[in-house]
């Protein structure tokens, strides 16, 4: 059984009269949202991930205040190691690496979140349709998914990147349009089992429209794996962006995407390893944060798994 949408279920448990977040006493009725948060907080790795992510969002939002230089501003110091003026050193054409990594938080979070949202939207739409309606539509959607699964992901991504061109926004499209396969399967599996539940039967008997049943009744109960997968996939997207940049089909130069910076730093590993180290560290820490938060959410949303 799924615990479903924390908010919806939470207000159901507390009842309409009682304010959400009311009794904290032992044995008193507690909203599910609080329960989830309490369990999440106990997971140390997940909390470290969350703290780092909050820090990252602050850095991204206040990038112009934090970064001492702009992303294209050049100083006559090439490939200098870290110093007081340039915390992370300077790159091959004399740009301040610290400022670029700080602005990179904006780019990478934007790519990661938007591409994940796009894949999730496609996946939820296809998966719920397949799982809810079943029959021929289900077979069709699943066959299409199989066909795309058969094509190695990286080939598909490079080919589509070659069509759309190379920029920050097109890379979101490329990764978003190629990343919906797993989530489609996950959503379909949830819908297949949830469609058999009594409350769906009741909703059908009440004469609600299919769209309403799919998105108002079933989807909230299928959210748990979607939330977990979506969180982890933001990290996956950041890694994919790095891989595409390395292969030369990612965002192009002045864009301070971390993956691109790592790919550019590869030539100078011997003389200027800081060019590789700082953006790579940013990627690793960010991806790990999303993975830990995703793991923490899974355990918190479904305590039986522990």
């Amino acid at each position: 059984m799924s615990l479903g949408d924390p908010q919806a279920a939470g207000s159901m448990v507390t009842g309409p009269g009682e304010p959400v977040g009311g009794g904290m006493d032992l044995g008193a009725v507690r909203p599910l949202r609080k329960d989830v948060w309490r369990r999440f907080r106990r997971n140390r790795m997940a909390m470290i991930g969350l703290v780092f992510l909050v820090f990252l969002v602050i850095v991204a939002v206040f990038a112009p205040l934090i970064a001492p230089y702009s992303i294209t501003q050049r100083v006559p110091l090439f490939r200098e190691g870290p110093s007081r003026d340039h915390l992370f050193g300077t790159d091959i054409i004399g740009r301040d690496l610290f400022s670029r990594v700080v602005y990179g938080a904006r780019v990478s979070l934007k790519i990661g979140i938007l591409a994940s949202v796009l894949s999730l939207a496609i996946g939820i739409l296809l998966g719920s349709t397949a799982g809810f309606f079943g029959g021929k539509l289900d077979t069709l959607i699943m066959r299409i998914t199989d066909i795309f699964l058969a094509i190695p992901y990286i080939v598909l991504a490079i080919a589509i990147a070659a069509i759309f061109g190379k920029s920050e926004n097109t890379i979101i499209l490329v990764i978003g349009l190629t990343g919906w396969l797993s989530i489609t399967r996950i959503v379909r599996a949830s819908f297949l089992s949830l469609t058999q539940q009594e409350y769906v039967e009741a909703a059908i008997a009440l004469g609600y429209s299919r769209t309403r049943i799919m998105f108002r009744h079933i989807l909230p109960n299928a959210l748990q794996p979607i939330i977990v997968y979506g969180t982890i996939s933001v990290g996956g997207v950041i890694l994919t962006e790095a891989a595409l940049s390395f292969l030369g089909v990612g965002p192009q130069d002045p864009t301070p995407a971390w993956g691109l910076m790592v790919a550019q730093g590869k030539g100078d590993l011997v003389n200027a390893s800081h060019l590789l180290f700082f953006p790579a560290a940013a990627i690793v820490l960010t991806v790990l944060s999303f993975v830990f938060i995703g793991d923490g959410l899974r355990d918190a949303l479904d305590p039986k798994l522990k």
Partner: protein
Amino acid sequence: MPSYVIRRILLLIPTVFFAISFLFFLFFTLPGDPANLIAGGFNRTPDPGVVQRAKERYDLDKPLPVQFVHYWERTLKWDLGESYKNRRSVNDILGEHAVNSLRLGIWAILIEVVVGIGVGLIAALRRYSLSDKITTVVTAGMSALPVFVLGFVLQYAFAVYPHKHAWPEWLTLRTQGLGPDSWAFFFIPTGEQWRYLILPAVTLASVSTALAARMMRGSMLEVLRADYMRTARAKGLDERSIIVKHGLRNALIPVVTLIGIDFGTVIGVAVLTETVFSWPGLGSEIASSVTSRDLPVLLGLTLTVVLAYAIINLLVDLSYAFFDPRIRLGEGGEK
């Protein structure tokens, strides 16, 4: 069982057909006329006569549906065509690169199975110990590190650094290319060869090994709690046979599934690994064929990879019956 295998293979045919056809049409929606590219390149205005000859040679003068039919006619006879880039037969290119990829892949799988399953098993048996904690941290870190960064770091640590500090020659590993072609029994490197093989093999194995170790640890922990394990102990069996015969065999099922399903990821990792180490395998060749728009090479090599992927998945499904005799394939509603 045989009818199950036949049904799976029949299902496979349309999937492969549509996947390759999709790539075929996708390629022609790319900007730029392929004949112009063959004749001159992106920016120059090529000689019209040369363009015409290129069109005739590569069947590009016909309408797209006709080309499409011709493509499949040839492909069904396993004639994969000719590279746009250097006019070499794709069958030859495939043969050469597939061998290199296989050699690298065999070692990566060996590392994945031995290290991944071994480390996962030890971590599960010594839960909460220091080695378990290290395993958790390292495997999580591995899956968050871009593959090519790992490749660069390994190159630096085992080849560049030792070279700079004049370590003895035999301690310095090689970072680029295939090296001398000396193999025993197809895949065992001899002499110099292992110094070229070891870094790319470790890089290729890294992601899947980390995943396999995590999976093995989780799966073993679950099995250790199972009732039949308690029963086995109660019967007075010795700990070793409990772990190996009752525990390991059951815990391996999800890990084997992972190793099969994960093949798609492995191809992605292979593209990056082979590019970093200039290893002339299928992955690096596929990546360069997309960027240089060498359609016959792209389709030919991808077709091979797709077929290999499908066959591996089939073998994995069949292996369930070996690990768990309760699973009977082909009966009931099995997909």
